[in-house]
């Protein structure tokens, strides 16, 4: 398996090139290049415009026009001078005006935009203007002197003297325009070169840009592939880790499971040992051993619960359950430890609670016991309250809130954060002070979540805690409740011939001891093969068959037995197995087994199982009357009306007489005193049956509570229950006296010896 470190140990991921900055640089350069191209093109447009203006004015043409008009005026003057008397004055005037109109076109302010002025231009223009000033005396708008022959000759001479200068001026203009045009062309070429360069630069940048984009895309692609590989490696690492975790969980479950079986043997043997004659010292040692074993078993049960929860193997068996009865039971169980610590215990039921809900009562009680035991454990004075209310949901499926409040030491934030984690307790100091596996809350929350609910907690250090179980449970009509289990006195089962098949010697011995105690005769087999042979040869009433054995397992043995001829082939076969999964149960049924007992086998379960096959069914019990009453005459009447009068009183007297060591109440008290749960459960069962028949309903209820306690609760509550059974015996006796059922005013209280010091004689 890869360790998580391996996942990252490979080639480091390619980093994406730091291109963001480069892209911005390129964008900036491109913008600058575009701006440059814009400037160049704008300048070109300006040059073009100036060329157009140049063309429009055609400066060179203007210079030559001046020279041309000068010549034409010269001719006109010469023509006129030839015969002044008959000269065409109008023609001369027009030629002069046209000549003058031309002069403004070669002034420096007109030519300045196209080429710089020069001295030749100003000099020649000055001479021309001077000529016009003189000529205007004869030809101007306000002519003051006649245009006679002399004036004509003088003007012609003046023109002739300027002709060459004007010609030079025209040539100079031509030259200047040419030079200007050449400069302009050079500028255009220069601009063109710049524009071309910029265009090439732009093209280059575009190529670079494209290359970067391509590189970036490739880097992204490579990175994507690397990420995909990494995700794949992480996925498989995660898968491996989960598999390892599952394996460990399964191992833990198996181990605690395997540990439970021999442990059950130890407990059974301890119980049987107590039956024998013991010294007081041995009895005390035995009790200590039993308590330790019970505690260890409770721890194992916790571990098993936690691992089955984690492996999602834990199943709920919901069935109609009376909420009222369930809460009564929780209250009655918890009242003793609470009283013991001087705490007030309150159970508050909202008025709108449904009577009956569909729930796995055993698991629901487990949660409530856990929460309330914690509350009691961590509270030194004050009150522990269980308040049950409806917090929403629908009428068909109300959301029930079970709120357990205490006034104990409370928890800080860090503690709460660790609270539901495995093996964690408040902190190391509380762990040392209060003990426990630390699995209780995890299991409780796991069960709550399995039920579709959850547990949350609010706590203030020093002020107490509030745990709330929220779970929506389907409401049921009260008629759906199964009738209370009929009391089956163990003695009703006749002596049976039992074949016990188990590969584990401890288990075999335990079963043998138990069955012998019940008065049955026992034969032992170590595997399926031996069992088939035994059934073929002997005759048995019932076979208790372990499922997992070497050589031949329980399934194969059952099939082989079922092929035997009667009566062997029809023997009752009860499967014994430690895995309580439904699949196993169904497989056992399919194979041909008649019933199923989960290991560790509780004596009461075994007795009930045997009774199912070999005792006549008891009549269904009537409805439970008012639970506050100590006794219920109707029940007593139902049981005794058909019998001899006075029998009821006689049996009641016998019930309250402690001299008979086998009397159920005495045995129960002894077991409570010694902390022997197995026997206590069995005695409580017997007590319950007897009490119910006699109409002593409160005692029957208490007995049932004791009977259904699990090992951990039993260990915690045994001392309190001892006191409670004693006080209830006394109170019930008083009630019987008041009802006139018995006459004796002062019976001897059973179990007068102090807890822990007595053993049945």
């Amino acid at each position, binding site marked *: 398996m890869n360790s998580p470190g391996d996942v990252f140990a490979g080639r480091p991921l390619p980093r994406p090139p730091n291109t963001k900055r480069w892209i911005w640089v390129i964008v900036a350069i491109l913008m600058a290049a575009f701006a440059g191209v814009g400037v160049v093109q704008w300048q070109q447009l300006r040059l073009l415009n100036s060329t157009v203006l140049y063309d429009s004015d055609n400066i060179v043409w203007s210079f030559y026009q001046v020279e041309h008009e000068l010549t034409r005026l010269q001719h006109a003057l010469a023509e006129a001078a030839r015969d002044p008397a008959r000269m065409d004055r109008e023609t001369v005037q027009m030629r002069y005006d*046209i000549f003058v109109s031309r002069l403004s076109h070669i002034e420096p302010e007109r030519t300045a935009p196209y080429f710089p002025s020069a001295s030749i231009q100003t000099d020649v223009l000055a001479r021309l203007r001077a000529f016009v000033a003189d000529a205007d005396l004869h030809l101007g708008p306000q002519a003051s002197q006649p245009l006679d022959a002399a004036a004509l000759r003088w003007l012609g001479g003046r023109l002739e003297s300027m002709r060459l200068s004007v010609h030079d001026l025209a040539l100079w203009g031509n030259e200047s325009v040419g030079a200007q045009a050449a400069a302009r062309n050079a500028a255009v070429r220069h601009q063109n070169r710049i524009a071309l360069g910029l265009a090439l630069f732009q093209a280059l940048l575009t190529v670079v840009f494209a290359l970067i984009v391509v590189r970036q895309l490739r880097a992204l692609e490579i990175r994507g592939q690397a990420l995909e590989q990494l995700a794949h490696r992480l996925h498989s690492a995660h898968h491996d880790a989960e598999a390892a975790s599952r394996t460990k969980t399964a191992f833990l479950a198996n181990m605690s499971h395997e540990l439970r079986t021999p442990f059950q043997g130890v407990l059974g043997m301890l119980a049987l040992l107590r039956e024998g004659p013991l010294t007081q010292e041995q009895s005390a040692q035995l009790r200590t051993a039993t308590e330790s074993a019970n505690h260890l078993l409770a721890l194992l049960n916790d571990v098993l619960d936690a691992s089955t929860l984690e492996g999602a193997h834990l199943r709920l068996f919901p069935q109609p359950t009376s909420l009222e009865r369930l809460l009564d039971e929780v209250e009655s169980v918890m009242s003793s430890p609470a009283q013991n610590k001087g705490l007030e215990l309150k159970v508050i039921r909202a008025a709108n609670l449904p009577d009956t809900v569909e729930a796995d009562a055993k698991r629901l009680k487990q949660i409530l016991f856990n929460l309330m035991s914690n509350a009691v454990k961590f509270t030194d004075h004050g009150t522990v309250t269980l308040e049950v209310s409806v917090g929403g949901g629908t009428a068909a499926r109300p959301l029930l809130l079970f709120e357990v409040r205490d006034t104990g030491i409370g928890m800080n934030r860090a503690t709460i954060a660790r609270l539901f984690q495995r093996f964690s307790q408040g902190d190391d100091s509380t762990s040392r002070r209060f003990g426990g596996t630390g699995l209780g809350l995890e299991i409780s929350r796991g069960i709550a979540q399995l039920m579709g609910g959850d547990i949350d907690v609010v706590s203030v250090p020093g002020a107490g805690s509030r745990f709330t179980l929220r779970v929506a449970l389907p409401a049921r009509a009260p008629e759906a409740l199964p009738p209370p289990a009929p009391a089956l006195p163990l003695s009703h089962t006749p002596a049976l011939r039992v074949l016990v098949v188990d590969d584990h010697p401890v288990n075999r011995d335990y079963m043998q001891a138990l069955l012998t105690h019940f008065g049955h005769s026992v034969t032992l087999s170590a595997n399926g093969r031996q069992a088939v042979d035994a059934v073929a040869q002997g005759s048995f009433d019932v076979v208790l068959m372990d499922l997992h054995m070497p050589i031949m397992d329980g399934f194969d043995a059952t099939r082989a037995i079922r092929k035997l001829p009667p009566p062997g082939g029809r023997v009752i076969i009860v499967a014994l197995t430690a895995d309580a999964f439904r699949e196993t149960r169904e497989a056992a049924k399919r194979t041909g087994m008649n019933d199923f007992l989960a290991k560790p086998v509780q004596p009461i379960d075994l007795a009930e199982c045997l009774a199912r096959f070999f005792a006549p069914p008891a009549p269904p019990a009537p409805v439970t009357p008012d639970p506050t009453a100590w006794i219920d005459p109707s029940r007593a009447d139902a049981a005794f009306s058909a019998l001899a009068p006075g029998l009821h009183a006689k049996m009641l007297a016998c019930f309250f007489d402690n001299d008979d060591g086998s009397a159920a109440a005495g045995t129960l008290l002894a077991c409570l005193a010694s902390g022997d749960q197995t026997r206590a459960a069995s005695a409580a069962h017997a007590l319950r049956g007897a009490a119910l028949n006699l109409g002593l309903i409160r005692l029957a209820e208490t007995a049932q509570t004791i009977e259904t306690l699990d090992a951990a609760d039993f260990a915690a509550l045994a001392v309190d229950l001892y006191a409670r059974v004693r006080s209830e015996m006394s109170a019930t006796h008083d009630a019987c006296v008041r009802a006139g059922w018995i006459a004796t005013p002062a019976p001897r209280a059973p179990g007068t010896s102090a807890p822990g010091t007595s053993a049945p004689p």
Partner: protein
Amino acid sequence: MPTRRPLLLTLAAVALPLAVPIVWALDAPTGRVVLTIEFKASGRKVDFDMAMLEKLPQRSLTTGTPWYPKPRTFTGPLLRDVLAAAGASGTQLRLIALNDFKVGMPVSDADQYDVVLARLLDGQPMPVREKGPLFVIYPYDSNPELQSELFFNRSAWQLRTIEVQ
């Protein structure tokens, strides 16, 4: 009959756009001839003196030109009215200036643009030495396409003769 004249005028006004070309009853020039319109095909000549041009509807146009640093106001008859007054029908004109400058112009220019045959510059007659007496002016400022060498060249100044072809 006092009622017939307005009726005729109305009819004339309605028919006016349809009558092409409109021939104005021309007086013979009494002053100095400033413009001659010559018909190449017939050899006919129509002379105008300044008074005849003044009688035609006048148009004032203020526009920038390449020849003056600032926009100036030119006033005179529209070229197309002058041509119509001369009864001209043709497609191509040839403008000839006093200094023998010659340039061609399609008749369509006169129809398409309000080409003014300017005789006043800022309200004053233009002497020859100031590009007068007649100056062909296009409305350059209101038509950007006119601001080109082609139209500047057609804008003959010191105009003397228009040949109609």
